[in-house]
Structures are given as C-alpha cells and as structure tokens.
C-alpha cells in the first residue's frame, strides 16, 4: 500500500492506516448493512427518481436507509444520471470526503457507457474510470422497483464483503488519479476554486 507515488492528494485521503476492528467486525458489518445513509447529491435526470423511494409505497426507511445531507456521515453515494465533467469534479470531492466503508450506486445507463449521450462531448462516458462503482442499475432511469433491487444488491454485497469500491479506490489510486488528471488537467482543484472566487 505504501509504495504508491505520493500525489500530494487531498490531506492524505489515501495515506492513513485503516482501523481494523477485530472483536466487533461481524456486528459492524451487520450494522453497515442495516443502516445506509444516502448523500443528498442528485445529479442528472435520476434525482427525481429517488424521492418516490421514501414515500409510503416503497419506503426505503424500513431498511434503515435515510437521506443525509452531509457527506461526512453518509455511506451510500447515488449517481443518478449522466455525469458531466463539471459534476464529476463535485462528485470526486464529495466522494473523497465520505468516510471509509462507502459504496457507490450508479443509476441508469449513462454512468455505465454514456447511454443516450454516447457521442456527446460533454458527458463522462465511463464513470468507472474515475470513481469505483459498486452496483450499477441499468435502464434509462430505472423504475423505483429496480432501484430498490439495486439497494438490495448493495446490502447483499456488503453482507458478503464484495462491496469493496472504497478498497479498490485506495489500492489503485494512481489509475483513477491519472484518468482524472487527464480529463481535468493537473491541479484542477485550485484552478476551479479560483474561477469562482470573483463571484463570492
């Protein structure tokens, strides 16, 4: 883990040693499965698909899922539609802010292969190159049932330990980082921040 080149990434988001709970690991695994908090970050056209889940008909709260505005507390990150580079920058920053056992759920076909916007200049064709995806739900905006199924899938993967998107992000950070820098150019965080300074 430590031979990786130091990219001067954001506050050692990668370089901390992981906390291994020996005794309570199975309990925590169960708890992680039974209480998933979703980051309120709805991109693209899928954002409107998410509220029905909270209504009386589907009610994802019975699985312990609760929308939570702050990324620090959240575990589940829903990418609900096409991803433009501008949104991808925010996604990367929010993803890196989330605390570690975090999972990514990609809705719809756009994050998988660009979907309807397959030939558009401004859509990220394959999200997986920049952010590790745990479960992808096909469909050009999957219906709530499909999303619920995807959530069940995530919970199963957590149960079995396969939902290791955050581990993959840590291990081959160079790959993800190179792709990101290729897309946005080196040191894109400062440049982006400076652009908005004038308006604040």
């Amino acid at each position: 883990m430590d031979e990786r080149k130091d990219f001067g990434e954001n506050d050692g988001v990668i370089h901390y040693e992981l906390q291994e709970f020996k005794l309570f690991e199975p309990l925590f695994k169960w708890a992680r499965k039974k209480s998933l908090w979703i980051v309120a970050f709805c991109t693209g056209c899928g954002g409107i698909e998410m509220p029905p889940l909270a209504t009386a008909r589907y009610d994802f709260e019975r699985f312990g899922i609760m929308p939570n505005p702050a990324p620090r507390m959240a575990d589940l990150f829903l990418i609900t539609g096409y991803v433009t580079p501008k949104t991808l920058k925010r996604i990367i920053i929010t993803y890196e802010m989330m605390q570690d056992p975090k999972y990514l759920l990609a809705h719809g076909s756009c994050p998988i292969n660009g979907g309807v916007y397959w030939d558009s200049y401004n859509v990220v064709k394959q999200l997986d190159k920049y952010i590790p995806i745990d479960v992808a739900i096909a469909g050009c905006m999957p219906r709530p049932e499909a999303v619920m199924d995807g959530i069940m899938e995530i919970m199963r993967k957590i149960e079995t330990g396969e939902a290791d998107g955050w581990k993959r992000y840590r291990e081959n950070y160079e790959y993800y980082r190179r792709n990101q820098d290729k897309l946005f150019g080196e040191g894109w965080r400062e440049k982006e921040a400076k652009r908005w300074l004038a308006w604040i």
Partner: protein
Amino acid sequence: MFDWRLILDAIGILIYALIVGFIFMGIERKAMARIQRRIGPPIYQPIIDTLKLLGKKESVSHGFVYNFGPVFALGVSITALLFIPIANFQLFSSNADLIVVAYLLEVPMLGIMLGAMSSGNPYSALGVQRGLLTMVAMQLPYGLAIIALVQHWGTFKLSQLVALQQLQGWSITVPALALAFIVFDIVFQALLGLEPFDIITAPAEISMGPMVEYGGKHAALLFTQHAVQLFAETAFFAVLFFGGASNLLDLFLKQLLVLFIAIFVASIYPRFTIDQAAKFFWKWPTIIGIIAVLLTV
C-alpha cells in the same frame, strides 16, 4: 468513601437510559413514519446507526476542540442524567437541585457548539447561531415555568418535589401549574430540537447545521448524547409535572406519554425561521408563563 450500591445503580441506570434513549429515538422515527402511513424503520434503528458510525474505518478531525466538543457534550448529558431522581433510584439527586439540573441539561448545547465552531464550516456557524438564538428565545418561558413550579411547591430539591407530588397529586392537577405545563411543553419541543423548532439542524437549509462536519465516531458520540439527553429530558419532564415514578415501568410510561405529545406536534407543524421563533417564544409562552407565575406567587 465509595458506596458501591450507588455506583452500581448509576452504571445500571446509565445503560438502561442509553438503551431506552435509543428506543425513544426509534419510536420517534417509527411514529412519524406511521403517521405518514409508512412502515418506518425498526425501533432499534438508532442503535444500528450508532454502531455503523462507530464502526467507520476512518475518522477526520479539525483540531483538539473539535474532538473535545462531542466528548464534553456526552459527559455533561451523563452528569445531568445522574442528578435526576429516576424512579426509586435516588442516585446523586440528593446533592443538587432543580436549577443545577436545568443548567446541566442546557450545557451540552455548548459542547456541540464548541465542536461545530472549530470545524470552520459556514453551515456549522449558521447552525451555532440558530442554536444559540433558539436557546436565548426559549430561556424566558422555560425560566417562568420552572419559577411557577418552584413557587407552588416551595422547594428546589427534586426528590422533595417528587415526594410532595406523591402526596398532593401531580403538578398537572394544579390549574396554575397546568399553564406552566403548556409553556414547558412548547419549550420542551425546542429543547429536543423537534419539528417546529428544529431550525438548529435544518436538514434542507443548512445540511445538518452544526453536525455538518461530524462523521464517524464524532457522529456516534453525538447520537449517544442525543439519546441520553432525550431520556434525561423526558425523565425531567416526568419528574416535574407527572410526579416522578415509583418504579421504572411507571416512569417509562410517563416518558412515552411526553414523547408522544412531542412527536404528534412535531409531525404536524412546519419549521419556524429563527426570528419568528424568537418572536413567538417572547409572545405566547411568555404571557402564559407570566400568568402561571402570578397565579402561584
């Protein structure tokens, strides 16, 4: 010096309070869901959430005071809890009285504010500002309710208060104290941060207010603190107005009664903005409080 029975009592009550506190939070979410005709999470959902937060593999901090804030808040909540006469356990309530407990129930707010302020996030700063203004707004009616109570019973000692209420009937039955009950109930809503006055952690507006930068074990600490605080405040409410309790089940029922009043109010009313809340607190609850106080003098 140590009387072991007291310490065992304290530990027992602490664990009981923690579990029942989480259950109350669960009931809160379950009841709101049921009102919205949803199934809602299992009752023990808050316990799962806290465990998940505690089990986070990574933890982030903005400096010593950021860590000290939640620890201080939980510590003071536990202290406040141990000074309230829970059912037939006296615990430490013999050497502290109503004013000390009322103050201890408000001090955790300082702990949360300390942590939130040092996180250096504008949202948390807004949360701090709203939290303090709510506290300033509700302090006058809160004080008036307590004064009415004390003037009627003539004592500050909680254990004595409970004994008097056992003899002469609950505070609710006294007309003046009924007014004080109404005022205290409105203030109780703000103390818990439930719907009409949940301006502090307004989820949609300022993303969890002070708690925006809290994650992992800090959030777990805050959740446990909220659980203990919930138990302590419902117990305090029960002791003041429903004549304490002879045994734990009696206390539990009274706490449920109080909780459900709060839940029903919370699930109906939209959120006040902060200056509306201040103006509201200084109008109706204060007037009712003054009437209650003048009736009991």
